[in-house]
């Protein structure tokens, strides 16, 4: 699935997967990948008409980026998986506790690789579409960020928790990409 990703984008995805595991999630969601993206290059906000930042040796370093630790803090405080289950009357902490009593710690998280949720796969498809539309041969971190925010997702909901408008971020990031071409990489 990640064949056309650049090294950086791939690392961001791997970081997102590690993040999901750390949080005790049962699957990898767009919100986890967003943390991975933020951990790597930051998700640029408040970019009018271009993101604020500096160019160092051809690489664009945003100075107004969402910090990964802010996203991480929110995700840790509210586990969406546990919340979704609690809403239908199932306590994930209790299930986890029962399993840990029987099988030891990490009983639920020792399952090799966590699966990508359907909405995560959708976001990765959208990242590919972004790359095609921007005439990029490969999917970089920016295209990944665009894919995560192109449609409403858990990733965009996570940004809203920081009072950041995901649509605005998407549009500004997109405009900057289309305008700056190879400069903002």
């Amino acid at each position: 699935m990640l064949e056309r990703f650049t090294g950086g984008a791939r690392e961001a995805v791997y970081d997102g997967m590690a993040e999901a595991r750390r949080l005790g999630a049962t699957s990898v969601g767009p919100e986890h990948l967003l943390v991975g993206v933020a951990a790597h290059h930051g998700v640029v906000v408040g970019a009018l008409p271009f993101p604020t930042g500096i160019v160092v040796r051809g690489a664009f370093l945003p100075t107004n980026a969402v910090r990964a630790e802010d996203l991480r803090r929110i995700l840790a405080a509210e586990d969406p998986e546990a919340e979704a289950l609690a809403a239908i009357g199932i306590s994930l902490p209790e299930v986890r506790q029962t399993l840990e009593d029987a099988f030891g710690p990490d009983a639920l998280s020792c399952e090799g690789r966590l699966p990508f949720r359907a909405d995560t796969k959708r976001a990765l498809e959208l990242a590919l579409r972004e790359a095609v539309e921007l005439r990029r041969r490969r999917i970089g971190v920016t295209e990944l960020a665009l894919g995560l925010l192109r449609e409403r997702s858990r990733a965009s909901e996570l940004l809203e928790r920081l009072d950041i408008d995901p649509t605005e971020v998407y549009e500004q990031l997109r405009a900057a990409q289309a305008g700056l071409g190879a400069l903002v990489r």
Partner: protein
Amino acid sequence: MPAPAELARQAESADPKVGLRGVAALRRLLEQLESLHIRNARTQGWSWQEIADELGVSKQAVHKKHGRR
């Protein structure tokens, strides 16, 4: 008249998004529980037939899904 908190809870559980997300999360949890317990049974020497009987499915179904692990 129910308390406001109760009203809020009822309104929330009538939201399709809440229910559907709950179902999706439950399905993922189910998959994990299934492979955990099947692995445990195999470790304890259970046959695929015994596992299938307890799960109420065919031996082929269990073996196809979990056999290569």
